[in-house]
């Protein structure tokens, strides 16, 4: 998978990446030390408040997964069983539920028993959380508006907003890209390929 900067085991340095600039003041209370004690020079900032250790996270996730396992097991008991087949439709869901339960407990217990060696998870800082949340809400609105507004208009709105949000100084570019892509989506997917995307009342 392509990515820019993230893997803990990457020894490389990333000296040439530029970052979003929303024209705001520098991040407060940010811990810019490298994750896991490794040296990186790409200047990522991680929230001190949100940082949890891998051990603590594994204990919490292990418990959560075990609960999911119990939930799957209880949901599996409601599956109606046909007697004509050797393999009951409940078998696989039971296996999944049991695996989740056992592995969840195992992960929590194993992490609980670890002492000493630990590493930090670098969660985003406040600004990062806000950017991700707004981006996800934008995507959720895009999906929700797809059927009522149609693909071209929903695409235009989503791209105009997201591109502008990620770089607020380039609003003209955001509008241009959104307009071209919205129009292209109509011409290519609806007119040329004849796929069953909602066109919306503007184009119907």
């Amino acid at each position: 998978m392509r990515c820019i900067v993230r893997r803990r085991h990457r020894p490389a340095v990333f000296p040439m990446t530029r970052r979003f600039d929303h024209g705001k003041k520098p991040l407060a209370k940010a811990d810019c030390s490298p994750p896991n004690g490794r040296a990186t020079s790409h200047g990522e900032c991680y929230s001190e408040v949100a940082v949890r250790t891998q051990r603590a996270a594994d204990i919490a996730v292990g418990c959560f997964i075990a609960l999911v396992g119990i939930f799957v097991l209880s949901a599996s008991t409601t599956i109606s069983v046909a007697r004509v087949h050797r393999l009951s439709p409940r078998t696989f869901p039971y296996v999944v539920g049991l695996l989740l339960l056992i592995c969840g407990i195992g992960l929590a217990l194993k992490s609980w028993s670890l002492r000493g060696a630990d590493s930090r998870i670098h969660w985003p800082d406040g600004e990062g959380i806000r950017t991700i949340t707004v981006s996800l809400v934008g995507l959720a609105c895009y999906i929700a508006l797809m059927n009522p507004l149609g693909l071209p208009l929903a695409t235009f709105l989503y791209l105009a907003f997201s591109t502008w949000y990620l770089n607020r100084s380039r609003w003209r570019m955001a509008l241009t890209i959104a307009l071209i892509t919205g129009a292209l989506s109509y011409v290519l997917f609806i007119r040329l390929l004849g796929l069953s995307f909602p066109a919306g009342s503007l184009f119907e």
Partner: protein
Amino acid sequence: MGFSFEYLLQGFATALTLQNLFWALVGCFIGTLVGVLPGIGPVSGIAILLPLTTVLPPTSAIIMMAAIYYGAMYGGSTTAIVVNIPGEASSVPTAMDGYEMAKQGKAGPALAISAISSFVAGTLSVIALTLFAPMLAEFAVVFGPPEYFALMFMGLSLVISLSGHALLKGLISMALGLGAALVGQDPLTGAARLTFGTVTLNAGVDFISVIVGLFAISEVMINVEQRITAISEMKITNWMPAWADIKQCLGTMIRSTGVGFFLGLLPGCAPSVTTFVAYDLEKRMSKHPERFGKGAIEGVAAPEGANNATSTAGFVPLFSFGLPTAPSMAVLLGGLMMYGLQPGPMLFAQNPQFVWAVIASMYIGNVMLLILNLPLVGMWAKIVNIPFYILGPMIVFCAVVGTYSIRFQAFDVWVMLIFGVIGYFMRKLGFPVAPMVLASVLAQMLETALGQSLLISQGSPFIFFTRPISAVFMALAFLSIGRGIWVLMRAQAPEVAVEDPD
């Protein structure tokens, strides 16, 4: 059913039709593009395009999908060499020496040798695929449901146990993938499973939504979080390597092909593993190992050859046994099934025209990629400069369009969004993604094979241990699980998966 020149020539005749050549070129172009661009990789690229290719004939569609996969291996090195950003874990060794070469003003030769090495390894691996795949398929004809179940079980076990020191997380990831695939109606009895009484969930969760969410959306979230905007450009003037450099790397290319190809036959042995092995081997064999890490041209040729060989090797188990060894292969398997083609030994017997056309297209694709990557390498390097505030939303747009077109339901896109968030947390918490993808694609085949096996054995699970081939697969599966448990017991640090999800 084994290898014959007649079949291969027929394959070339089909692959060389104007339509198939065009789609191979489109695939090579998109592949290089997704390899170069940050935030999108071959898995997302193939998964997004798969539902949109239903307008194409199956042969053209799979030729294009395959070209995207091996094309991405060519493009992946560009950012590693030019700007020291290994876009994939498999490009880390390339960055070590490639960026050092770039700093010494030899970025052009480094990029060129990576393209040449990719071409040599890609072509040699396709020759090996041509010879091995039909041979193995002939052997796999005797496989019944128990052998298939055991084979898939072994594949999943290997993928889990090879994903770093994270056996429990790998198992959880696999269970979640199986769970997602079980939502909906049971294929045998029609009973609703894990639908919680909702009608929407009756149709089930499509694996493409899962994969696009896990890869494309979570990747965009990671980049958005880190507030990356763009990658700066490096000026390159001299593009061609000296003939002496190519001669110096010939042995390296052949050795890395061998390493990459044979390790790539194993499930879970991703390019991220084989490239390091190939790099290490070259360093050990070199008369001047001290040059490695300081701009040794063999240090670029070795990983680039190995990752191309590994990607092609993945087609051997896919075509012969219907076994995907990596997430990209799992998506391709899903694509084959979508077109009503049953991957496995019968593919060679029942659809020889299709399978040989795809293999033949790989020879042609490698030539296309060499042409696309050698003279046009400057263009690809410039594409890296597309700012993320444009690229990120465009990736999301492509993901939404691709996912919506699976069944033209917004439900699939919501599933993609949910799995995007799950994928984000999995990456943050060190969970391997590959077992989840493979399990979500293999779930139905696993369940069918298990059901049929139990029908044959009248309910006895010992059938997997009494038939010799399935017994070998089961033994290997338990060995890999045992190895995972051994590593788990010895580990004194929290579990963190080390993998290249592509």
